[in-house]
């Protein structure tokens, strides 16, 4: 594995040095990102190890801004070469590349007073993700798979189970005095059993647990059993006729709708007039029961960070409050285009301009247990899986492949597949008629069970 200590390099010092070198080479401002990561993964299938992977890598990215009469020229470079020669190439390349770009009056770093980072322990990094010896990691994956396959004799095959662990470190420095770094850790266990039904057709589903700390990871057995339950319930799925009916989104698919709300509120889509939310600030865009929040500050969250990709402190932004669009989500550039301040939602790769990225993004829980939402549906679809691209944010048109369970008289009656659900996001958000109390984060984006009325189900 590659590590800074081994290479004898202080990466935060190096980031600062590269900023200085860029200024010396002609940049008016500069930003440097360094990323370093290690990963371990083991996958098993039918009780035998299939792959074992263990390694690490790092990379550095530089973005330079060269001031012109009415704005900045901007360019960026990235490299995996940390030698002095490699760094010199990185710096000279970026400054030279900036000469070919156009002057952008809206480009430029944030103001000095905007930079900063959250204080205190955000509980993002735990050494214990690497605490298990390799044999134990293999055993965890095997236990998860065995627990799944033991549930029912119809579980005849497996797409395997895996245990993954990773640690990463991110360093960021710029020419306006910001310098920061943070580490994060991750571990997960997942299992994907295959069942065969009476008609011979196979079904596969999966379940997983992920955590920042190994001690918070669920035990393999319940993860495996849940994967088995999800797979078995899809056996002998049918199609339904084309019709309009209520659609209940299970949490694992409902979160896709929350992601669409974030993308529709993203400043770059707004200033281009490429979003259904353009010009809708202060207006009702969803049912009154709907509140959508992006919060990058939740301790141990998968979307938490002390600062965003431009060095601004992470924060909590209410996007939709009781159905009303309250805030766009912005980085410095999108903010400037709209005459607003960044909401600390900048993301970035090693090279390229900052984009917009969510923190911990969620739709606030309602008070109804999910069972009760189902009981309120005479005839409808409980959708547990969606396929395909989904939503056109310019028009709101929404059409996706779906599978799940058919609801009859408030009960889950039988599995359905090879159907689509379609509507328009603008209407779908207003047609959210029930919100469950089951908000659980299994990743950076979360949503409780929700009911959406007025969608078209296409089938046979």
């Amino acid at each position: 594995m590659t590590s800074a200590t081994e290479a004898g390099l202080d990466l935060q010092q190096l980031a600062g040095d590269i900023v200085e070198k860029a200024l010396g080479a002609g940049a008016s401002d500069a930003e440097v990102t360094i990323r370093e990561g290690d990963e371990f993964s083991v996958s098993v299938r039918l009780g035998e190890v299939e792959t074992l992977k263990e390694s690490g890598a790092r990379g550095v990215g530089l973005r330079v801004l060269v001031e012109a009469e009415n704005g900045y020229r901007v360019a960026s470079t990235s490299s995996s070469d940390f030698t002095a020669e490699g760094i010199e190439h990185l710096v000279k390349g970026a400054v030279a590349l900036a000469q070919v770009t156009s002057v952008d009056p809206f480009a430029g770093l944030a103001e000095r007073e905007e930079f900063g980072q959250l204080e205190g322990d955000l509980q993002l990094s735990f050494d214990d993700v690497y605490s298990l010896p390799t044999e134990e990691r293999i055993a965890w994956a095997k236990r998860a798979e065995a627990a799944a396959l033991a549930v029912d004799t119809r579980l005849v095959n497996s797409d395997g189970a895996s245990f993954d662990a990773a640690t990463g470190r991110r360093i960021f420095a710029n020419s306006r005095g910001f310098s920061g770094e943070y580490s994060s850790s991750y571990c997960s266990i997942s299992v994907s059993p295959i069942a065969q039904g009476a008609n011979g057709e196979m079904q596969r589903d999966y379940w997983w647990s992920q955590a920042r700390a190994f001690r918070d990871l669920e035990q393999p057995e319940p993860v495996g059993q849940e994967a088995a339950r999800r797979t078995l319930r899809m056996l002998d799925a049918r199609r339904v006729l084309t019709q309009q009916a209520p659609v209940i989104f299970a949490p694992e698919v409902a979160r896709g709708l929350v992601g669409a709300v974030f993308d529709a509120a993203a400043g770059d889509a707004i200033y281009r007039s490429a979003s259904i939310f353009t010009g809708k600030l202060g207006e009702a865009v969803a049912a009154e029961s709907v509140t959508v929040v992006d919060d990058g500050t939740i301790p141990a969250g998968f979307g938490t960070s002390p600062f965003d990709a431009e060095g601004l402190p992470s924060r909590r932004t209410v996007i939709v409050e009781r159905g009303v669009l309250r805030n766009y989500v912005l980085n410095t550039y999108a903010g400037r285009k709209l005459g607003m301040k960044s909401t600390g939602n900048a993301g970035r790769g090693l090279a390229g301009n900052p984009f917009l990225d969510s923190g911990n993004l969620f739709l606030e829980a309602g008070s109804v247990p999910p069972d009760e939402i189902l009981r309120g549906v005479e005839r409808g679809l409980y959708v547990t899986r969606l396929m395909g691209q989904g939503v056109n944010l310019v028009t709101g048109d929404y059409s996706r492949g779906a599978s799940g369970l058919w609801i009859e008289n408030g009960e889950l009656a039988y599995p359905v597949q090879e159907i689509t659900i379609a509507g328009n996001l603008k209407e779908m958000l207003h047609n959210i008629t029930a919100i469950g109390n089951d908000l659980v984060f299994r990743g950076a984006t979360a949503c409780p069970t929700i009911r959406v009325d007025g969608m078209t189900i296409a089938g046979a």
Partner: protein
Amino acid sequence: MELDHKRYFFEKFGITERLLERCLGEALSAGGDYADLYFESVAATSLGIDESIIKTASQGVSAGCGVRVVSGERTGYAYTDDLAADKLLRAARTAALIASGPAKQPVQGFTETDAPNLYPAPGAELDTDLASKLDLVNRADRAARQYDPRVTQVRASYADELRRILVAASDGTFASDTQPLARMNVFVLAKEGERTAKGSSGGGGRVELDYFKGPKGPEHFAEEAARTAILQLGAVAAPAGEMEVVLGPGWPGVLLHEAVGHGLEADFNRKKTSAFAGLVGRQVASSKVTVVDNGRMPSRRGSLNVDDEGSATQETVLIENGILKGYMSDKLSARLMGIASTGNGRRESYQQIPMPRMTNTYMLAGEDDPHDIIRSVKRGLYAVNFGGGSVDITNGKFVFSASEAYLIEDGKVTAPVRDATLIGNGPEALKHVSMVGNDLALDEGIGTCGKDGQSVPVGVGMPHVKLDRMTVGGTR
């Protein structure tokens, strides 16, 4: 030419044949059956225009080596972004831990894979003609804006990369390649009254800059994107339910990629997790359907002189006159299934384990006149462009999303419809193919395929095809 590729890693990073042999020896020190080294060096450039301003210019370089050790069905993998001898040997020792037995010896001496020359192999470190690349995106911006006054936003990008690889394996395989890849993309928004719509287009391949000075240049992509956006301004709601569907030539071949392509990758069939497992020799499509995967097409986006395991690529018949003929394989599945590798072992980067992947996948032309195909439809959908798709290879259900489609009413193409997803069942869908056009076309070079988190460039193609039924996911 082969010598040049090899010399790159030898001269730039001090790699020697002796070092390759030492690393392979280290990789088999715990008794694996097979080991390989995959060296990769990538240089990439990207330029973007947005609101008529060149806002994006970036260049990146990365290099590394992945070491794989196979023992039975087990694979050990380690990689390093530092190509110094001690780091390579350490990665080899890490990967070796998958096996547990007495050390084995790699085959003595390497045999270079016999490979074609399907694409240009620029000798320079980077094609640095930035001015010409900037001209491409500027021209795309102008052409899209000039297309129609209702065009309000234009974004255009040019991206290229030069990937150099070297593969050395314990079975004596030795291969190297220099793989160019270039692509233009144009994204357009159009507005009329309260209605806004988008359109996009793009293309390229394993080509040099000169390619974009030909007919598939910036004006072509810009006009296509603008045309689609303007068309979508007047689109009506898409129909819902099962109906006759006619797919246009070229990129709609993504149908094949999803409906049958993934399901015919050897790993899924070796593990019997694919809906196509055990169906070789059986009818899986109408007798009019012949589908091939062909990695050997000059300059195509999905083409490769050698795959990422150093095997020569080839043309593989997947379905012939409706009968399933075989699978696409890498070395591991080939060995475990007792078949030959079809040169489909691919990986996203040195950090990833290779697996069976498609190259260029297409349906051969039939005998029907495209006009007759349209005329034969009473009520249906004519889909000529798609966003993308996905598939569950275990139950066979696949989707693909139409971005340009029209109603067919009484044998005539009528109104354009809004975005809609189409869904079908892989082993069944192609049995409903009743007409196959005489106009095979490949896509313009925009495909990227994802599998297990790894993305690789691919191509698809198809003539006009009529499916007697398929479910269209509209709203009315």
